[in-house]
């Protein structure tokens, strides 16, 4: 599903943070174009 795909990651501090999502998707073969983490508070 993610192999060779360009992906933008928008994580959340109190949910799944950006770097944690990026680690998963890199392992799934994705090319991470941009990753960020949002803080809602």
């Amino acid at each position, binding site marked *: *599903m*993610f192999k060779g*795909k*360009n*992906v*933008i*990651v*928008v*994580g*959340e501090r*109190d*949910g*799944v*943070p*950006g770097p*944690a*999502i990026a*680690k*998963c*998707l890199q*392992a*799934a073969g*994705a090319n991470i*174009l*941009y990753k*960020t*983490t*949002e803080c*809602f508070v």
Partner: protein
Amino acid sequence: MDPESQAQIKRIADDFGSDNIMVVLGASDIEGAEIAAETLTVGDPSFAGPLAGVSLGLPVYHILEPEVKESVPEEIYEQEVGIVSMIVDTEEVSRAFRKIRETNK
């Protein structure tokens, strides 16, 4: 979604083309995740950020959706996401995000 992220994503979408990009979100609150998804598909609903009135139409997924989980090596998914998937209704996330993607096809 904060205006800085909106601006960055808009720039990347302009450079690479919306057809070649997927977005994966991680917000634990489903309503919050839906707002972010809406921002990246039909535009910023608060009309405050750079994506106000801009319909990027990006396919948006959530890291907690079962189909995303299946494509990630199990051990890594457990380590990075496992505990959050224990406390969020992942089926509900899946339903919400499938609907968003279908509506915006």
